[in-house]
């Protein structure tokens, strides 16, 4: 099967630091691909580089098309949904406005799906997003990616700082979404990775040190410890 996203020789330099040093991996067209790695390894920067949010060199191909030189908005319009690490919520806008802003093209926009997964977002439609809890903000962030008919979702640490009950809720949603659209997921919660990820990419100091099946990495405690510093 040809991969959906192919990244090759990706370099990111910000100021004098060489943050990504030739990242390369492929994301299959189905399932969840988890990007793992210690704090500061370059996971977030990798997603940002794919989206053209940080300046980079190297190649990014989506379904065979080179998108590396396009501006961010054009890359996203190729069919990418992004839920960033800081959630990227517009605090002064209402929940409904946050969702409306994310509508791309003519649609149809899948509000039925979003409100079914996150009924709270419908109830709180008129509330300013800045006054939502962290979990609710994450729902807005993920909801925005589900609104459009995306070819792939890029989701950065969606469960960071959330209460266990909400972590489960978010995991359920991602698992369900992944049946329709492949997800590139940055996640530190290994239990969650074990549950929903099919493939893994491990990044260390701006390079890829491991790729493979999620199950085979996580069932090998020695390798997991070596790569991630945890068991």
């Amino acid at each position, binding site marked *: 099967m040809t991969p959906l996203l192919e990244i090759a020789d990706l370099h990111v330099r910000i100021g004098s630091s060489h943050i990504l040093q030739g990242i390369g991996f492929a994301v299959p067209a189905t399932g969840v691909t988890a990007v793992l790695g210690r704090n500061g390894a370059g996971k977030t920067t990798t997603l940002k580089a794919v989206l053209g949010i940080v300046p980079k060199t190297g190649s990014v191909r989506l379904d065979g098309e080179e998108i590396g030189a396009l501006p*961010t908005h054009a890359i996203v319009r190729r069919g990418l949904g992004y839920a960033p690490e800081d959630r990227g919520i*517009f*605090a*002064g806008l209402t929940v409904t406005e946050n969702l409306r802003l*994310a509508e791309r093209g003519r649609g149809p926009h899948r509000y039925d799906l979003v409100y079914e997964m996150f009924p709270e977002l419908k109830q709180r439609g008129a509330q300013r997003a800045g006054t939502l809890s962290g979990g609710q903000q994450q729902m807005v962030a993920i909801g925005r990616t589900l609104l459009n008919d995306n070819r792939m979702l890029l989701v950065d640490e969606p469960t960071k700082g959330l209460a266990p009950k909400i972590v489960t809720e978010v995991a359920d949603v991602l698992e369900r979404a992944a049946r329709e659209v492949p997800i590139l997921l940055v996640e530190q919660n290994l239990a969650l990775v074990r549950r929903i990820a099919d493939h893994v990419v491990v990044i260390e100091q701006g390079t890829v040190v491991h790729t493979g099946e999620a199950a085979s990495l996580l069932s090998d405690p020695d390798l997991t410890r070596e790569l991630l510093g945890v068991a």
Partner: protein
Amino acid sequence: MSNIVLLALTGLGLGALYFLIASGLSLIFGLADVLNFAHGLFLAVGAYGTWWSSTHLGFPFVPAVMFGVVAGTVTAVLVETLLIRPLYRRTIEQVLVTVGLSLAGVALLQAAFGADPLTFPRPEWATGTTRILGAIVPNDRFLLIGAAVVVLVAIQVFLRRTRFGLIVRAGVEDRTMVTALGINVRTAFTLVFAIGGAAAALAGALAGVYFGNVSPGQGTSLLIFAFIVVVIGGMGSVTGSAIAAVLVGLVQQFTSFYAAAGVGEASVVLLLAVVLLARPGGLAGRAA
């Protein structure tokens, strides 16, 4: 009492001019991070466009103002697309270009129309007065205030009810995230310049009515006060600009009448300092 009424309405009229200039400055800064000193040029184009179409084309007042506003809007769009767009993220160059444009604009206007003030076309009714609570108030104050209210409402409707308005409000908060939703935020930059240019050009025309004449340097002091209004109101907030414009206009009028001319300007600067100490982000900005 009659003094108070006259001062209040004159202060509000002046505040109306400040608001018309400041609203665009504030949106442009809030969305695009551009300190647009070329705003004075848009103002001058509006004023001279109105004057020129009235004296040379024989336009009646309202069409002449519309001509000036269109000329100011076109100028703003050209300035944004040709000069500022290539320099986004290069703050110092931007400031140099916009300041240079402002100076060059004044010099060009001077070369074309002379340095002396030119008598500005005014409709009959704007030169009359109205008695309110014993005060004899020049009618142009009502024109200024009315125009600013209409523009305020129009900008609010645009910001709250249209998709582009939604993009502008979101972009003021987090421009990168707007582009990460697949939106070309540069289009909104151009639009904000167009809106700012139109409002500033209208201010230019109305300043001509208020002062009775137009001269190349007229926009400069208005622009300085408008920048103060933007900072007091909070960068990026149109409502903040409106409130600050009223405050500045009133403070300036009352203090220069009851203290001395010149104290008005000083007290505006004092107001600026007080607001910034209490709320560094301005009235509508995030409280620090």
